[in-house]
């Protein structure tokens, strides 16, 4: 069997890093970046730069863990730390993921409401679409469709360019850190880190790399895949911030969510920018709405012992597909039921994700240093320091936010 190399090999391996990275730019992420740009202009771009670095570090780690051990995160936690810890982690993950999926479908609703489509049509249609994709397809077809969906993000780059930003100020904001000490500013910083480095994303990249049957020989290309995905995510985030900074911040327009941003862009940058922004939001929402239930289904299967993958038929992997379906149904219900407390749910979900993140980071970094688990692929000292620093920053910002919220 001829061994592929170079670009061909990279194309075969690419997927986990790209999808895990790009799905982090989900509606919640786009909203956070929009508000970041609208409220603070170009000042906080450095936070995006740092969170991209953090993303590269931990997604590479997740992919490596999956590839070397052949197990997903929840399964690995069960094997190393026992059933109780795995059950606790699983419970937290499932609750957080359900909430995040609600946010994704709410994003679909918001994006299509901009075009005048009622959510009672758009959300069920989206649910059927994402379910049919994952339930029906083989692994490679699902991956290809998801990657095509991800190209919707190019719209943000176009929107950013259309807004005619001040690139000098943007460059400065990227490189020069300035810390807002008020609660809202800190909330934004924490939200940015949290939306980039989400627990479900860490779990997804590991499970997906396992499902894709990657091997340690692929690690070299997988790293390129991870870095590409993370950098693309960062670049898209930068363009979102820049688009809003150039227009909304300059005029002092305040927004509450990404839908507001798309609307507010129109008088300032033309209907083209506005349309592109909305289209990007829809693509982001659909991508994340496909990936979130998938990540949850992987985790549930791994922790309970019913491992399954996209290649398995429904009959072979009932729990896997039923979990996927259940998450979608619950999320759709929450978004559609009038009077459902969507905003508190979204807020609590973000809080839960923020609380769940530090223990997961610590756990994952510990497993990375485990010689018995990783063999000669274990992380070196320098990497361990980098993981510790990142975890420290996350803990610090969450703690600072907690203190500011309570006081």
């Amino acid at each position, binding site marked *: 069997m001829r061994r592929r190399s170079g670009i061909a090999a990279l194309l075969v391996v690419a997927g986990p890093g790209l999808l895990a990275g790009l799905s982090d730019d989900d509606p919640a992420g786009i909203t956070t970046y929009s508000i970041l740009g609208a409220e603070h202009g170009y000042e906080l771009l450095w936070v995006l730069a740092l969170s991209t670095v953090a993303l590269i570090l931990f997604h590479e780690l997740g992919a490596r863990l999956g590839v070397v051990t052949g*197990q997903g995160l929840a*399964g690995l936690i*069960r*094997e190393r730390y026992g*059933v*109780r810890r795995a059950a606790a982690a699983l419970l937290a993950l499932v609750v957080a993921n359900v909430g995040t999926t609600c946010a994704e479908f709410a994003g679909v609703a918001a994006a299509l409401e901009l075009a005048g489509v009622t959510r009672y049509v758009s959300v069920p249609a989206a649910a059927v679409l994402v379910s049919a994709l994952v339930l029906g397809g083989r692994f490679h077809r699902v991956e290809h469709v998801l990657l095509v969906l991800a190209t919707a993000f190019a719209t943000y780059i176009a929107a950013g360019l259309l807004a005619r930003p001040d690139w000098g100020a943007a460059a400065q904001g990227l490189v020069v850190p300035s810390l807002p000490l008020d609660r809202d500013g800190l909330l934004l910083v924490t939200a940015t880190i949290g939306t980039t480095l989400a627990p479900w994303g860490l779990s997804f990249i590991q499970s997906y790399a396992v499902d894709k*049957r990657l*091997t340690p020989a692929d690690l070299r290309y997988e790293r390129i895949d991870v870095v590409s995905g993370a950098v693309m995510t960062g670049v898209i985030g930068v363009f979102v911030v820049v688009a809003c900074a150039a227009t909304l911040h300059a005029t002092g327009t305040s927004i509450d969510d990404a839908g507001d941003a798309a609307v507010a862009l129109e008088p300032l940058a033309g209907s083209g920018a506005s349309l592109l922004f909305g289209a990007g939001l829809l693509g982001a929402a659909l991508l994340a709405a496909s990936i979130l239930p998938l990540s949850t289904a992987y985790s549930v299967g*791994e922790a309970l*012992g019913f491992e399954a993958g996209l290649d398995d038929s429904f009959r072979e992997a009932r729990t896997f597909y039923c979990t996927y379906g259940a998450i979608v149904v619950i999320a759709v219900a929450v978004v559609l039921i009038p009077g459902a407390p969507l905003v508190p749910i979204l807020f609590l979900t973000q809080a839960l994700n923020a609380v769940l993140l530090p223990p997961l980071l610590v756990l994952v970094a510990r497993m990375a240093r485990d010689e018995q688990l990783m063999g000669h692929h274990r992380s070196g000292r320098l990497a361990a320091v980098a993981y510790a620093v990142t975890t420290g920053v996350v803990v610090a910002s969450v703690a600072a936010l907690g203190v500011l919220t309570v006081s």
Partner: protein
Amino acid sequence: MDATTRLTDLIGRPVTAADGRRCGRVTDVAVDHATRFPRVVALAFRRRRRLTVVPWRCVERVAPDQVVLGRAEPTSIAGGVYLARDLLDAQVVDIAGRRLARVGDIVLDQRGTELRAVAVDVGLAPVVRRLGLRRVAARLPSEMIAWDALHCATGRGHELQLASPAAAVHGLQPEQLAEVISRLHPDRGAEILAAVPAARARRVPRRRRRRRYSMMRARRRAPS
């Protein structure tokens, strides 16, 4: 006393000396993997921070509420398979059912003082029981895989089963080998191909479609 015990019930059981003195609590047992249904050969127990391992012949009696030691000759079984450490919550390939599963519990058959591991439970019931929800667990199905119908997918269990001629994987026909290998990490698959007789390895068919990727990878990595 003849009975069937679960590993998770055995773990945590008090260990007492013949004179009634408390020695600690059971943490693990080691098995001799050289037989078709492995025999327990050592007992590990912990008192406060101290872990002691004694050969199983020191055990005088196994009762539902305690394990009684006749004498204690501390030893260490290097290179053995410890059931809780190496097998519990690890992945196994169910050769008969053709799937990857995770061990929730291990069934031990007791004849007198001899304990043998006879099956693993990969269903939902043991997971729920270990979380403390015994009554819910009682209603859930157990899924048993006999020890001679499984192969450990991860770590020490895999290595030792490969090294032991009595292990299930050595008795497999090429078709069955293909099924097992297709479900494993390609490196493990390669190790299996390397461990079975070359003539049989050559006859292991390539899988079509689904698991083809793993199979191809395993072949490529195995020394020919």
